[in-house]
């Protein structure tokens, strides 16, 4: 910190409201579901699981688009997002990714297209999982850009965990699905520990104040809680409880990161 002009923060805080973190949550879950759905079909797992996962992906896409549109200052101009393609703008890449993901996940519901569109939905789903990390990472906000390498895997694990959690709550109890959920929870545990132990000034909003508590609560609910619950019991009720924790954790994580960005903008001087 150096002297600033009457302690006026140099940066402007993000103008995004609750729609954007909710979009990160919905888009992540939809992207994760697309991957699980396609892989379940490829590997010939329970067809019911593949079908449900594809419906989550196809349903999550329009919800995502609606949330993003609602956050625009001029929602009626949402189509301007597809006016140009700008590789240097993660927001542009994200808009095209969401468009391609929506088309693919809808196509994957049509039996005749299910192979090609399913593959495309898994690939665009993987982009949906991760690009949001680059989106907030490639900004002037210190707490975001300092963590640009952490954010994509963090958000990917969060999205996969949400998708697995929704499927578990729908009654799916396949061992492979449980493995995927445990893998994501393990990744979130490691990432949570990293956030807790790395102390640079820019990391403060991730550990202090309301944003810090959101990140911490989100990390515990996404990581160790579902991991231990799934590891210690095979009871469906336990797995469902673990899934509720993972979903709440994912949502809190997304809300926490946006809140931390708002705090971080005010700190930079």
């Amino acid at each position, binding site marked *: 910190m150096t002297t600033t*002009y009457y302690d006026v923060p140099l940066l402007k805080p993000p103008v995004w409201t609750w729609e954007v973190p909710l979009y990160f949550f919905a888009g992540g879950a939809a992207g994760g579901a697309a991957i699980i759905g396609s892989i379940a079909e490829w590997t010939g797992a329970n067809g019911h699981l593949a079908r449900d996962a594809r419906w989550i992906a196809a349903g999550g896409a329009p919800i995502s688009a609606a949330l993003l549109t609602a956050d625009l200052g001029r929602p009626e101009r949402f189509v301007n*997002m597809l006016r140009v393609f700008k590789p240097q703008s*993660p927001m*542009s890449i994200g808009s095209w990714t969401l468009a391609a993901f929506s088309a693919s996940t809808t196509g994957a519901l049509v039996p005749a297209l299910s192979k090609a569109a399913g593959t495309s939905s898994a690939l665009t789903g993987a*982009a949906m999982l991760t*690009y949001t990390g680059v989106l907030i990472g490639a900004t002037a906000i210190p707490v975001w850009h300092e963590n640009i390498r952490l954010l994509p895997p963090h958000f990917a694990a969060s999205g996969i965990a949400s998708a697995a959690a929704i499927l578990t709550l729908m009654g799916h109890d396949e061992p*492979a699905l449980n493995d995927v959920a445990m893998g994501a929870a393990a990744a979130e545990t490691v990432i949570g520990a990293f956030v807790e132990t790395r102390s640079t000034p820019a990391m403060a909003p991730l550990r202090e104040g309301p944003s810090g508590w959101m990140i911490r609560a989100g990390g515990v609910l996404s990581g160790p809680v579902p991991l231990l619950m799934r590891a210690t019991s095979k009871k469906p009720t336990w797995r469902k409880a673990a899934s509720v924790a993972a979903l709440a954790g994912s949502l809190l994580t997304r809300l926490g990161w946006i809140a931390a960005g708002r705090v971080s903008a005010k700190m930079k001087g």
Partner: protein
Amino acid sequence: MATTAFLTDSTLCIGCKACEVACKEYNDVPADGYAFTGQSYDNTLQLGHSTWRHVAFVEMDTAFGVGGNSGEQLSWSFVSDVCKHCEHAGCLEACPTGSIVRTEFGSVYVQPDVCNGCGYCVVGCPFGVIDRRPTDGRAFKCTFCYDRQRDGEQPACAKACPTQSILFGEIEDLRAHAERRLETLRARGVDDAAFWDAGDTSVGGTHAMFIVRGDPEAYNLPQQVDVPTVYLEDGWKSAAAAALVAIAGTAAAFLARRRGHGGSTRSALQRISV
């Protein structure tokens, strides 16, 4: 077309705020409140969606200088801040609609008929200049009076400035002028005069340059600043790796369990390759 720029010389600024008023009037920028800040004579405090010129009032310890003050009083320094019109502009790079463009004069311009108010430029600007106007929904900042420049006129703020603290002209001419001005100031004993244009950062220089006294940080002109596109490479590499692990990890879980239930890994791999 000539590449144009502002050179704002704080040693000539008298804090009259004519630039703020001229900008508001000419560009029809709405009022943004009547807050009394208590910070010197500055009730504007910062640039924003409805403040495209902002005169900062920096109070310093008494020092010999231009218009030298008496010993009992603070030394007062004013500078009219404005959008920097960066060579590598964070807002322009971030804009997903192509609303923000580079003009033929080298300035950075938001096309109001294209902007859809996504807000990504707000976090893309390393100087906290551009912002979304809540009453309108779109993002706004200094236009560098693009319409006036097209008509061969200088921007309204430069035109209104009564002391030539705000100079407008061809960028190389202004750079040369700034060098001469700094020499003059130093010859007069103003040792703390400094030139600022973020030229040695990833921003690559600005089309709004400044001469200030003392530490530029005190005027919210940072010495170390980055255009956020410098983070992209790390970000996309990490995203690609994470995407790969997400797909491979999920596939591994399903393949392993499939084998456990009697299916062969080989046939599953054949399915994937289809």
